[in-house]
């Protein structure tokens, strides 16, 4: 087990290296000059060149990349081109908010999606099943912005049950987490249903029922654990997705997460921030998948870590 984890961590480091290289290259190739953004619209050609030299942006690609890596291993993510603030500071100031929302959102997705999926599977073919299926599709097809704004409007503006966006207390967390929960629950409920249906028809279930085990015992004790495997993988994926930032929900609810930082940086070609955020979210993705892969054998011992 330990050997497996170490192997995975080494592989992850390689992946991060790969991601850093690809991102740096894309930024280099991008036909949008970051120096022009820094120098502004009134700068003379001389000013632009001077800034370019100071930032080392006139160097060839490999030298720039090498310098970046060198600084990175010392913990220096560089300074934002436009804000002059340290990138590490910018990311750290937003990371707690992103992590908090991540955990809360996944919890909501599961709390909403799993029970609905199980109920649908147990009532297969009936109106309830079809109704729940319709609901799943509606939530997945709905544009994020609309759902977020709708929930904010109804529950915060009109009813006043929650603050209108912002960050700081539990009350601030509810709406954004529930929004993400609703938006993502469709996937979980559909997969759960599908998985349960498959498992419920298996022979061992019939065997258990024939043995006289009660219905709920069969479902919770035998069917559910078998059905939950794909869900674990999905949670891993979700961790990764949320770490890359959910800009829309963040901006509607004024949630100071990484997504907004990344989005602004991309518009302005603020390379140090883009590199920093991409690497941090890559960490999240790799970690998420690793955790999912470590949990899977616990659920289904047939899966071996190899």
């Amino acid at each position, binding site marked *: 087990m330990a050997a497996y984890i170490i192997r995975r961590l080494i592989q992850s480091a390689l992946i991060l290296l790969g991601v850093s290289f690809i991102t740096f290259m894309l930024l280099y190739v991008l*036909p*949008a*000059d970051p120096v*022009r*953004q*820094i*120098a*502004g*619209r*009134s*700068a*003379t*050609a*001389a*000013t*632009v060149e*001077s*800034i370019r030299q*100071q930032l080392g942006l006139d160097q060839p690609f490999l030298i720039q990349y090498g310098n970046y890596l060198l600084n990175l291993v010392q913990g220096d993510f560089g*300074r934002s081109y*436009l*804000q*002059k*603030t340290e990138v590490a*500071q*910018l990311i750290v*100031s*937003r990371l707690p*908010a992103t992590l908090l929302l991540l955990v809360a959102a996944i919890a909501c997705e599961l709390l909403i999606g799993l029970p609905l999926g199980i109920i649908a599977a147990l009532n297969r073919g009936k109106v309830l099943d079809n109704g729940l299926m319709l609901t799943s599709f509606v939530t997945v097809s709905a544009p994020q912005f609309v759902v977020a*704004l709708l929930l*904010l*409007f109804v529950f915060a*503006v009109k009813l006043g049950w929650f603050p*209108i*966006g912002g*960050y700081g207390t539990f009350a601030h967390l509810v709406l954004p987490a529930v929004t993400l929960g609703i938006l993502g629950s469709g996937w979980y409920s559909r997969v759960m249903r599908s998985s349960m249906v498959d498992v419920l028809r298996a022979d061992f279930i019939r065997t258990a029922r024939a043995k006289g085990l009660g219905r709920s015992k069969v479902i919770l004790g035998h069917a559910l654990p078998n059905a939950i495997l794909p869900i674990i993988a999905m949670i891993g994926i979700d961790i990764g997705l949320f770490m890359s930032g959910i800009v829309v929900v*963040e*901006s*509607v*609810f*004024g*949630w*100071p997460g990484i997504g*907004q*930082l990344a989005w*602004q940086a*991309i*518009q*302005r*070609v603020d390379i140090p921030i883009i590199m920093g955020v991409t690497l941090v979210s890559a960490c999240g993705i790799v970690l998420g998948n690793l955790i999912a892969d470590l949990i899977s054998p616990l659920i289904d011992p047939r899966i071996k870590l190899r």
Partner: protein
Amino acid sequence: MKKLILSTALATLMALPALSPVQAQEPKYGGNMVVTYKDDVATLDPAIGYDWQNWSMIKSVFDGLMDYEPGTTKLRPGLAESYAISEDGLTYTFKLRPGVKFHNGRELVADDVVYSINRVIKPATQSPGQGFFSMIEGYDDAAAGKADTVSGVSAPDKNTVVFKLSRPDATFLHIMALNFSFIVPKEAVEEAGADFGKKPVGTGAFKLTEWTLGQRLVFEKNADYWISGVPYLDSFTVEVGQEPVVALLRAQKGEVDVPGDGIPPAKFVEVMKDEAQKSLVVEGGQLHTGYITMNVTQAPFDKVEVRRAVNMAINKDRIVQVINGRAVPATQPLPRSMPGYTEGYDGYKFDQEGAKKLLAEAGYADGFETELFVMNTDPNPRIAQAIQQDLKAIGINASIKSLAQANVIEAGGAGNAPMIWSGGMAWIADFPDPANFYGPILGCSGAVEGGWNWSKYCNPELDKLAAEADSIVDPNKVDERLAKWSEIYMKVMEDAPWAPVFNEQRFTMKSARMGGDDALYVDPVSIPVNYDYVYIKE
């Protein structure tokens, strides 16, 4: 011996400047104002901050030698109590106001001014405003890093600063009022290093007391501000990361005093239809023009007839309708409220038949294909599509390239874009002077690779006229200078490298409790709000 020409207004300027503009009611003191923005604030370093968001915050934390009367484009002395210009226009002598303190308690001296100007020009600062100071003697060497200081700035005594210029420049006083000239204390800059932008120390009406990254900034009143009686607010809070639609909802509920990004297009009609809300909206002009640039170095836009035809093809009224009436059609590059605007000039009237005839004259009777670049944020793609339809009516098939701002700017700078709709990147004046609308966007210096003169229009004759106009520094000859500028822009319209479409109006929504002259909420210089002079009514 050089005679000193006193500015005609100098006598009245010897006294402390007039306080707030005549207020309709008695201003009240106290309270905290809440302003929201979507984007994070980049920096509060006056030498670096150059977006419309931090522009007015910097004006509240720092001061410069010159300033503007609140809500207007009229210059008045700031940290300088008086100034004198030599007869040849090459020497400016400023007398500093005594007793001005920085937020850290130290008194302002002339050396601070020298330090600040040197800092902006120094290459290591990477200031976007460096180029504005090119008229000062010694600029070239300092900007190239060959000299440590700028020879043309000096402090003969504690209260006097002398500027020597290498050429007479009528915009110099405006430059002294520009954020890039604001005075910073050396010890605070050195202590904070690269973080000075997050820990600003100035002489302004407000000091920054809190900056929670990604969430909010809090500015508190400077009790020792050198203009007595100002500011009125105890503090103002800037909340960032707020979607404009949500900010408006919060404003409607009274949680926010001014949504800094304005009324989003989606809510505009709804707000203006509601009498109660409409009364809270202040409308004002901006020193802004939205225009279509045409690359004059590429066929078919190298033919002036084609460019004129484009001007005539655009239905400006319909475009203004599409953006819910938030602008006024434009006939020339300068906006209406800019000095030097040519009154009574009708420009190219909307005439699609006439446009088709011109095209035929130029040899394009069957029209042609081209590309129209536009920035992808609403409402610009819509405006571009309206333009596209107008062009189609005269036979020009323009395919739209809707891209991120940085990509459009890049294409424009590289000369790869035949047509660009400037919306979202349109020129807003740095200072209220007609010269500011020429150099980087219509002059030869901007027509280089990477420059903002996206039409690559270079008319050396006009450049010469511009330099002549700017050398008229005698304040008594202001009208002569403005007339020259008007002539320059009329010639530009003749050559038609641009098709000016509209001048955007500014609509600022404020909460019912905010007081102060309307002009303060659409201050042409201190965008969006002049924090120093507004107050809370209760």
